[in-house]
């Protein structure tokens, strides 16, 4: 079950974070600098701040770490500051104050050349509206990042060709972006970002402009890429389902602040406040919550030895299937050790939303504090493998 596909992801705990953001502020408006520095102003609500100073705080005192190999999702409604936040990471928008480090190197202190180097090699971005050059062919668009680095024509085209094939656009190399559908254009955008082989991929609501079906395809494409390459990703979205589907960890933003940061399970299972609770109300909990949270200690040795075995990070809906099929409670087994038991009452409780987990190790409602990760897992794997594992 826990066969992690990439070596990068295995040593998550040891590695320093790829991106480390501390107390980041971005204030738009006249004399924006004074706002983060003044405790009186920082305490103000957004509307009040605006009327007092004419400034808008798009990002307010945000801190988080992005770990190597994980998909870090920043999610929030429009106007919550998430797009500004991701642009601050490579200083496409200059932050007002705070600290950003990539691999321990201070981003805000970089000079122009160093910053260019960061954008060229270490972090590249996929945009909501693609941002393709309309006068260039698909191939030259994909090769653009390499051209900017000064790579020769033949070499960069060969490399671009590989990437174009990787994102499933073979045979379209000579077309112009205007001749492609939205989904195909975004594949070009993705290929352009991948071509420079960056350490981190930044996605700014990449699929919001696409049709639902295409969007699902593209989400699966991202999952596949992540599984194959294990690249660190920062993914901005306003779509909760997308966030839950892709994210290893999710930072939920509102009015420029992170209101909760945690795994999908933590966000759905124990919302930090009413806003988050309202947000996740409609989520089918059984598809997000795992049996680890739903299980209770076995009442008897007999119970610990009987029933179908499931892995701890199997979702509740999969456990329901197993329990329904056998008619007995299921055992949660990790490395051959029985951690606990889930019976139909516990599983129903999760579905009904009355049970947020009887397990002592219930997730703590984390706010800006980086929460415990359940390990970087490629979700598609989990689901694919789970079927074999159960029974």
């Amino acid at each position, binding site marked *: 079950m826990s066969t992690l596909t990439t070596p990068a992801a295995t040593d998550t705990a040891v590695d320093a974070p790829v991106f480390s953001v501390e107390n980041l502020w971005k204030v738009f408006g006249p004399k924006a600098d004074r706002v983060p520095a003044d405790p009186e102003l920082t305490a103000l609500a957004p509307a009040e701040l605006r009327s007092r100073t004419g400034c808008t705080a798009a990002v307010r005192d945000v801190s988080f770490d992005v770990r190597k190999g994980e998909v870090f999702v920043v999610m929030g409604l429009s*106007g919550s500051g998430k797009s500004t936040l991701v642009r601050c990471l490579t200083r496409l928008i200059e932050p007002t104050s705070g600290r950003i480090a990539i691999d321990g190197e201070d981003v805000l202190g970089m000079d122009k050349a160093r910053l*260019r180097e960061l954008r*060229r090699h270490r972090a*590249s971005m996929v945009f909501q509206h693609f941002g393709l*050059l309309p006068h260039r*062919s698909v191939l030259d668009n994909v090769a653009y*990042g390499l051209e*900017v680095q000064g790579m020769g024509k033949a070499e960069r085209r060969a490399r671009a060709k590989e990437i174009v094939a990787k994102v499933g656009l073979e045979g379209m190399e000579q077309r112009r972006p205007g001749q492609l559908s939205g989904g195909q254009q975004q594949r070009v*955008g993705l290929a352009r970002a991948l071509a420079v082989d960056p350490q981190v991929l930044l996605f700014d609501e990449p699929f919001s402009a696409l049709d639902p079906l295409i969007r699902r395809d593209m989400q699966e494409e991202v999952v596949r890429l992540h599984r194959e390459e294990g690249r660190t990703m920062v993914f901005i979205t306003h779509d909760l389902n997308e966030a839950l589907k892709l994210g290893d960890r999710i930072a939920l933003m509102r009015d420029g602040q992170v209101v909760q940061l945690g795994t999908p399970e933590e966000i759905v299972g124990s919302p930090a406040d009413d806003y988050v609770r309202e947000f996740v109300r409609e989520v089918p909990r059984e598809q997000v919550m795992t049996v680890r949270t739903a299980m209770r200690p076995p009442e008897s040795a007999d119970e610990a030895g009987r029933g179908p075995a499931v892995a701890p990070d199997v979702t509740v809906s999969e456990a329901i299937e197993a329990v329904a099929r056998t008619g007995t409670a299921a055992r949660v087994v990790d490395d051959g050790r029985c951690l606990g038991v889930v019976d139909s009452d516990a599983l129903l409780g999760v579905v009904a939303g009355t049970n947020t987990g009887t397990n002592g190790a219930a997730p703590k409602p984390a706010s800006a504090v980086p929460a415990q990760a359940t390990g970087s897992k490629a979700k598609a794997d989990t689901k694919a493998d789970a079927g074999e594992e159960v029974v």
Partner: protein
Amino acid sequence: MATVTAPTVRTGLPGLLKHRALAKLVLIALAAAVLIPVVNARWASGSWPDALTVDLSEPLGRASDWIIDNRDSHPLFLYFFGHISNAVVLSVRAVYLVLLAAGWAGVTAAAALVAWRTAGLKLALGTGLAFLTCGLLGMWVPTMQTLALMVVAVLASVVLGALLGLAAGLSDRTYRALRPVLDTMQVLPAFAYLLPVVLVFGIGVPAAVLATVVYAAPPMARLTALGLRGADQGVLEAVESLGTTARQRLMTARLPLARKELLLGLNQTIMMALSMAVIASVIGAGGLGDRVYQALASVDVGAALAAGIPIVLLAVVLDRVTAAAGDRLGGDGPETSGRLRALQWGGAAVLAVAAAIAARLAGRLDWPEAWVVNIAEPVNRAVDWMTAHLYSGVPYIGGTADWAGHFTTWVLDPLRSGLQGLPWWSVLLIVATLAWLIGTWQTALTAVLAMAGIGVLGVWQSSLDTLSQVLAAVAVTLVLGLATGIAAARSDRVERLLRPVLDVFQTMPQFVYLIPVVALFGVGRAPAVAAAVVYALPAVVRITTQGLRQVDPAALESARSLGASSGQQLRQVQLPLARPALLLAVNQGVVLVLAVVIIGGLVGGGALGYDVVFGLAQGDLATGLVAGVAIVCLGLVLDRVTQPTERRRTTKGA
């Protein structure tokens, strides 16, 4: 993320506007009530008081004398203007010699092949035919003279315009400084540019080229800046996110993204340059324009037409080829490989050279005399017949000369005497009121100052004469133009029929319009007005049609769903919603009419245009310069009085 903040003012506008308009009116009435008695007591009413006039003719005459005396000795002329002048003469001469050396066959082949490569086979054929027609009409040499002047002027305009546009596109401060200047330059009649260059360079080719450059560069600058500023921000951000340097961004993204605007700028610059190169015959440009000018001076319509047709052909060919090139580049067609393109261009060049050599070997370098078709005589016979039969005395409908006469006595004369009879302060008051009601207080101030400037210069009477012609022409233009525009907007068939006509009419240089009106109406003020109407009509029709057609279909549909009749739809939905476009149509109509009314001075329009021509012809630069400045002032007044407020103006660039 970036929520576009739409101007929220629009919602409550009608009510607000009424109040604001009312407030403005009250304010103006108050100011008038206080000022008029004072002004009246101080200076008499009636025409502009002499006490407020400054006679500039003497200092201007001295300045012009000084320049003429020092042109060959003063270091400013020797080391600056002299070099410019020499460079211009040399380059025009060089281009002209190359064109002559290529011979008619070489030039025609080269032009057709260039058209083929940039715009396709059909236009290549048209281009070839156009050049052959120039030869057939016996106008090969003047055509080449005009072309040589054009090549140099267009190159200089494009370089100058692109540099200015680049500066304005990349720097906000330059843009803010440059924009009002460019906007103003675009509304000034071509005649206003002639005098200053003549003052410095004297009559001749350098003056003509420089006037052309100054006249033709603004659209290039404007569109370059617009293109650079209008680039898709998303693309630029994406390009920046890949770690490009500023130079890389400019070369690989901003300039390519602005290609459409750049080519449109080139197209407009070429059209303006042709227009000016023809008009500049008045200051020694030579070529086709000179032939028309000389022929018009002796009312020889046939000769004027023989030179006019090549001008029109040149205009249409240049316009279509550059426009088609723009469409091609802007399109999404698959990329042709660089080698294939180079091969095709190379083949074209070889063919052109072969044609030139073949003609040379055949001993037919110059257009053969025997191939010239003289159209002047038959045309003149036709004109004579028209004069005899159509000018007057046609039963029931009268004749063209009768119409012109009636128009002059019943419309132009009363209008002129009415305007000239108005107390001078009331003219200022009317200008202020109109400009303020339609625009802002800044536009009103500019307009009033410009109008007062006319008075101070001492050309009040003749300016009002010009103004009366402009007003009459604008009224006719608007009635015809709006009616046609509405018809074209409501019927696809009418629009399809009109489109090619409008296309051709919009590309023709102003000067050419004088030829048919002289044939029809003789000389005088009425033909000048007629030429102005014909010149301004296409733009007015086009803007009106576009404005009406671009009305939000949802609004129209909802009106239809409520059962509005088509008349109600037009009156209650389309016209109100197309208001910005209609105001723009008025503004453009006024600007275009003024340009031609001024040129009408060449065919007996009198007033300011005549003063300029007279000043040039008599070497009385002072008179001409004063008239030129008055034209600038009048242009400013008319533009500002009809200029919608800044908010709506933004649609103009689109």
